[in-house]
């Protein structure tokens, strides 16, 4: 099939970007969206033009590197799917597709479709861990964890840190991302000692990075490739209030 792409091009963080139109020809429905972009890029390179820069790595939906807004939706219109796992069979011949980077103030564009997401690392730095050093742990079975708690912790821990939740939120809130980590630890006995301290510090870090707050639109849950539930935001908010009591 043949498609028309409208792609955000921006040379560097300081440059003014713009949408540029490219044709994508002879696209197979079995290709992934990124493989389609690979083909467009091959053509550009052969013409001596710079290829469209986009982030990607594992191409199997787990590393969280790929990050495109496709026709206005972070990771495209397929539910629970990263861009690298989005296949062209979900598009129609002749379709026009707009491709933009994650847009949020804390995510400056580095080039074209690549943004700087180091703000997410800095939120984690504030408390996204359990403070244990290697070497001192008791036997793993010394601390039983009820299966349903472990499963809930795993539901939250599935977050791949891509930042689609931020890109889709009108407030550019990182609360789904942050609450996923907070909830993972809150549901486990190992996470209890630092539970209240963690939520206070991480929320403060999120505010300092310039992310907004949640106003319950649930756009984040709708685009999350791992379908992380907004219930974790509610849980985080409860913990946050308790932390100040």
């Amino acid at each position: 099939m043949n498609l028309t792409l409208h792609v955000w091009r921006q040379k560097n963080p300081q440059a003014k970007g713009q949408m540029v139109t490219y044709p994508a020809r002879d696209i197979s429905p079995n290709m992934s969206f990124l493989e389609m972009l690979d083909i467009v890029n091959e053509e550009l390179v052969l013409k001596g033009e710079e290829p469209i820069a986009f982030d990607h790595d594992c191409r199997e939906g787990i590393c969280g590197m790929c990050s495109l807004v496709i026709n206005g939706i972070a990771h495209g219109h397929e539910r629970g799917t990263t861009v690298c796992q989005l296949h062209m069979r979900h598009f129609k011949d002749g379709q026009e597709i707009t491709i933009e980077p994650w847009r949020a103030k804390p995510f400056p564009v580095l080039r074209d479709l690549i943004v700087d997401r180091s703000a997410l690392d800095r939120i984690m730095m504030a408390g996204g861990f359990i403070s244990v050093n290697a070497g001192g742990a008791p036997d793993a079975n010394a601390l039983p964890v009820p299966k349903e708690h472990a499963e809930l912790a795993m539901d939250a821990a599935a977050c791949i840190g891509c930042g689609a939740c931020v890109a889709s939120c009108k407030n550019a809130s990182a609360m789904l991302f942050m609450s996923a980590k907070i909830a993972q630890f809150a549901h486990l006995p190992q996470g209890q000692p630092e539970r209240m301290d963690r939520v206070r510090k991480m929320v403060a870090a999120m505010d300092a990075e310039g992310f907004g707050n949640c106003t319950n639109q649930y756009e984040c849950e709708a685009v999350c490739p791992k379908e992380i539930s907004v219930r974790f935001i509610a849980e985080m908010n409860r913990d946050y209030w308790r932390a100040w009591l």
Partner: protein
Amino acid sequence: MITLDAHAPSGPLAEKWNRHRNEMKLVNPSNKRKFKILVVGTGLAGGSAAATLAELGYNVEAFCYQDSPRRAHSIAAQGGINAAKNYQNDGDSVYRLFYDTIKGGDFRARESNVYRLAQVSNAIIDHCAAQGVPFAREYGGLLDNRSFGGAQVSRTFYARGQTGQQLLLGAYASLIRQIGRGAVKMHSRSEMQELVLVDGVARGIVTRDLVTGKIESHVGDAVVLATGGYGNLYFLSTMAAGCNVTAAYRAYKKGAAFANPCYVQIHPTCIPITGDHQSKLTLMSESLRNDGRIWVPKKVGDKRAPNDIPEDERDYYLERKYPSYGNLAPRDISSRSAKEVCDEGRGVGEAGRGVYLDFADSIKRLGVETIKERYGNLFDMYFKITAENGYKIPMRIYPATHYTMGGLWVDYNLMSNVPGLHVIGEANFSDHGANRLGASALMQGLADGYFILPYTMGHWLATAKLPKVSTDRPEFKQAEAEVDGKVKRLLSLKGKRTVKSFHRDLGKIMWEYCGMGRNEAGLKKALELIPPLREEFWKNITVPGAGEDLNTELERAGRVADYFEFAELLVYDALERKESCGSHFREESQTSEGEAKRDDENYCHVSAWEFTGVGQRPNLHKEPLAFETVQLGQRSYK
């Protein structure tokens, strides 16, 4: 001239590591912060090492090419991590884990290293549980286990189908905590381009900042490479797009021996190729083989739909050939068997390069809900890629390049023959011999990073007596100039072909002549084909853009350029090893039943190669493998 001394401690196997730990020199707590350690790569091995070294008090600088240390390709490991906990009460022990691992590797690994790996495996599970890794649990709250290929006990710990992700995020959490404390300085989007030796000792690296293009020197008291494997040499593999051999290959060019490069694991349960556009192959965890049955039609060219083929016209060839291990036969054997039945014309799918992985019996026995709970994400992934429902019709699978057992040579202390250069995780050669068992990569990466390197590093720093050096030294300036020269040269070529087209051609040569089956004529053919293609690469590629920019095409060109030199090394190794062992199947060396036939008399050694010049045959050095405890046997999984 290279000297290979494994420095394996003497004494009984089970005592070696304890004794070695007692004898190694220590660094005083207040002196640790005076040492700086450079860790390149932040996957399971690098991330855990950087975090743990910082916990101990060392100054650490860590580097990764991704935008965050949370994204290394360890994250894609699905199935699990082995440990000798014997929580299932099924007779497991440190010795059995050791024995299964060394047998699985077809007796081509060092006994002392593998035994130590099994010994520290239990501490890894304890530490990860303490970090809050949400391992799968039983209803009573204790940890659950599953079985994996090459073992008859259940010793694999897992977190749904995302074990690698959860373990990596555990290591990342520990690492980011140390970054926050200021104990680790993190350089993301930064790629190592050169190793720097001062007076023969590894003292630093040169990196390129992938955003600004800035070429920078970094100096330290030790360099740790945790840069993963070289599977992307084959173009199509299960690796992440960015995985590359550059750091390890640059170290090799500076004198580090490269060991057993021909040991490349071709993983049996990947999704078959659909066309030329394909940029990667996707693996599905081999844990699927616990409940899936592998088969092809008995008849050649049977084009019926799988569910229309009656039971008695199906060949469950792994169960037939290996009744005691069945569908859980080790990876090398499973992959080769799949290739055989496809070569016979019994392969399935459009191109005939595929076999069925069928869950119908398990669904009947356990119910679809149980299968969903165990493997739901893998079925979803399969559906996304193929648009086929694996619960209703059998999945199609075919082997793909996955993991590389070979790597830089290291001694018992995980140090290469270049003093100060340590190599951990997949980047070294040490523990998996000629074939890695499932759920052992995560174990090795974390063993190296959490529990081995932190000890041996202290010994190196306490004994090395290193002079202070700075990046003003001519060795650094020269390395920077070389990196700059390479960048400029790649940008100046302005030829007519893309880097990717060359990479694809190189991959085809490697897959055809140095893939699952290898023979002398084919390997010699590969050695004829690679040099002219490499020459054309250096004349005819085109890389647009500038060096001082974020330039993804330039990044790719640098990596592929190194693959073009490395490919020859791998083929030389495969040619020299005239036996079959593990993943390395020389067609000239097989039993009457078509199984791999080892030649212990002539090849019971590690082949460690020394660089002599581009396009020249490297020098071979042999480290004999002495087996003090295990009896070498023909591997049998029948």
